[in-house]
């Protein structure tokens, strides 16, 4: 028996090593790091996350070191969906959590569920001390009314404002494990950009980890992408963990209504504008949300055609932008972050100021956290985009009118209407 266990552990270690090799080093995309303007701890895992593990695009993450930057330039960008799928498989295969928690199955559990990577989470009691390692999870927990359970957050959890009072434990990619342990959490929740190394460290410490991501998929022109259901699922599953299922049902039904309302209204549109979602530009590189990203799906259901659909992944170029000449440019301007002031910069930077959309005043700022973070606020983002794309279909309230057409201020436009 002992011998069998040993063999099993060795095998696990092998698989985990292999998994790391596959997930980690095949994807070199410093792009996303740069896209958000924040270099990630190691660029390849970022790409791995986005292509393979997660959908949530550029959440700010981590920092860069001299060493990673030097290795970057020797790696070649490889964006092959097959490898992405492999990465997911490898991750699932090498996460030993499932077996481990399965072994302790004797006591009755308060809650048991499977996370996005097929890992089984069993909790004997509902958690009372949660560390959230993802801004979207923090947002969702607060919305569910479980914000008071959060004892630790990442540096980037800036919404809602109450979140700022919780002590930060570091970045999304490199949180301080020591700090997390000192907070004595009974549950850790993570999402996109969560690192396998962090998972391994936390599992060694026997702290339950729940991971939830929305995968990028390509729904094609047929529309109806599965992304919304995944976003809703994220909320419902998280609610199960904190015993707030009823609240979640209400929130999700409101979200569904709002989404359906937008999609129905947009269906009446005679013309769909071609939209470019500008994550960054110029010196920071041209980045957008390409085909199959769930941001592309959001744009589609807001009644727009995503010009980024001619690429896979996130890296674009100025030349392609001039070739496609989008009708509308959505410029990410997360307040306080590197995106602040992007709108002004865009209008004064050559060659971008010569783009037709810029010249004709069809550039709109949008708080990119509404789109980048998969969660309840995606619906705010969706409604904002629909209003921008089809102003004729969405009558404006007088208070909002002054912000159109181009000085759209996200904070003024996104009343959260789904408090249960």
């Amino acid at each position, binding site marked *: 028996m002992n011998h069998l266990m040993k063999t099993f552990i060795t095998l696990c270690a092998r698989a985990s090593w292999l998994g790391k090799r596959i997930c980690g080093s095949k994807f070199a995309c410093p792009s996303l790091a740069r896209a958000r303007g924040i270099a990630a701890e190691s660029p390849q895992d970022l790409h791995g996350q986005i292509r393979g593990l997660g959908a949530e695009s550029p959440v700010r993450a981590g920092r860069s070191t001299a060493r990673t*930057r030097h290795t970057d330039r020797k790696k*070649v960008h490889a964006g092959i969906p097959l490898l992405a799928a492999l990465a997911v498989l490898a991750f699932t295969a090498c996460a030993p959590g499932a077996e481990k928690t399965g072994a302790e199955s004797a006591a009755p559990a308060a809650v048991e569920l499977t996370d996005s990577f097929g890992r089984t989470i069993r909790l004997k009691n509902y958690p009372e001390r949660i560390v959230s390692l993802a801004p979207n999870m923090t947002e969702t927990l607060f919305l569910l009314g479980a914000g008071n359970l959060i004892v630790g957050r990442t540096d980037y959890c800036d919404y809602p404002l109450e979140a700022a009072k919780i002590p930060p434990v570091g970045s999304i990619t490199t949180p301080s494990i020591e700090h997390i342990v000192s907070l004595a959490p009974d549950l850790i929740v993570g999402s996109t950009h969560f690192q396998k190394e962090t998972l391994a460290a936390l599992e060694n410490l026997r702290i339950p980890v729940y991971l939830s991501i929305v995968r990028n998929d390509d729904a094609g022109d047929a529309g109806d992408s599965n992304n919304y259901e995944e976003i809703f699922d994220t909320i419902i599953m998280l609610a199960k963990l904190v015993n707030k299922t009823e609240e979640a049902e209400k929130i999700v039904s409101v979200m569904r209504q709002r989404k359906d309302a937008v999609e129905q209204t947009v269906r009446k549109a005679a013309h769909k504008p071609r939209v470019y979602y500008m994550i960054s530009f110029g010196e920071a590189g041209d980045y957008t949300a390409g085909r199959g990203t769930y941001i592309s799906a959001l744009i589609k259901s807001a009644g727009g055609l995503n010009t980024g659909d001619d690429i896979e992944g996130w890296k*674009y170029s100025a030349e392609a932008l001039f070739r496609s000449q989008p009708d509308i440019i959505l410029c990410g301007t997360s307040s306080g972050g590197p995106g602040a002031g992007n709108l002004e910069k865009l209008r004064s*930077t050559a060659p971008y100021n010569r783009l037709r959309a810029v010249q004709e005043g069809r550039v709109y700022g949008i708080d990119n956290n509404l789109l980048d973070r998969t969660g309840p606020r995606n619906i705010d983002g969706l409604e904002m985009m629909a209003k921008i794309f089809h102003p004729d279909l969405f009558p404006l309230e007088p208070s909002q009118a002054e912000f159109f057409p181009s000085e759209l201020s996200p904070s003024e436009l996104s009343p959260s209407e789904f408090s249960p």
Partner: protein
Amino acid sequence: MKRDYFAARRGKIFLAALFLLLPLPASLVYISHGLITIPFGEVLRILASGFVSAETATTQELVIWLIRLPRVCAGTLVGAGLAITGAAYQGIFRNRLADPYMTGVSAGATLGCTIAILLGFDSSVFGLGGITLFSFCGALVTSLLIFTFIAASRRVSHTAILLTGISINLFLSGLVSLLMFLNRDKIETIVLWTMGSLSGLNWQKILFALPLLCAGLTGLFFCARPLDYLVLGSDIARVHGIAVKRSTFLIILFSSLVTSVCVSLSGIVGFVGLLIPNIVRLLFGSRSGLVFAFSCGLGALFLQLADFLARTLLSPAELPLGILTSIIGVPFFIFLVLKKTEQSA
């Protein structure tokens, strides 16, 4: 016999002049190809007619005038600049492995840029001046530091010089990373410098860099003769009437100027300064003036090609320039190091 020598030299000078002109027709090729292919005739017509206002310009005109032409110009300038400074550093360090990247001078310039950006200099003319000034100071201080180290110890091996350069490079890169970590909210503008790219370029930057770069290049060409003697050792140079200290300082000054302008245009682009002058020496001999001229032409051609590949290989996406120059440069570098060790063994 003497006639032959002069004839050969004239031939080389003629060839060098040809090399200096080659980037011009090459740039036409690069301007016409890309995501949208524009026929040569059309390119010439658009270039000849000058830039019309953006309202009436066609997509082709916009792409040529606002995206491709500035990129090709910058590629030419940076390639020529990096190659010639590589040749200059290799001369004064009397080491064929020296170049702005290996010696850490590029990293010094990057540190200067980083500090300037953190202090709030932007892409306005005033801001560009500030960034270039800081970058120049960083490059100058670094190269003086290394040179002082070499001058202080009488006999320094090639390895020691390289190790000094590499450790200074790592030290300065570490400082840049530290600054970036401490200022995460401003990081966006800085990452470019460390990756190397020509994609964020516009005319303002190029017009600002052009006179500085020309001044630096001209200065270096004038230093070519003293450099020929300096390569032989300071004693021999002194015997031939060269003001050793002054010449050395001038070469370092001009090289730092050129390096810093290149870094503030394109960020750190590795291996051009190492690769090009060494190829030139293998092909055309070691006279500094000729090495400088050939390096300028070949460096410009090399970087034009690298940038062309960077923007077309994964089109419509773009590769960082540093990736391509390194992929081509590293094998050559290893080959060179191996050959060096063979010779000294």
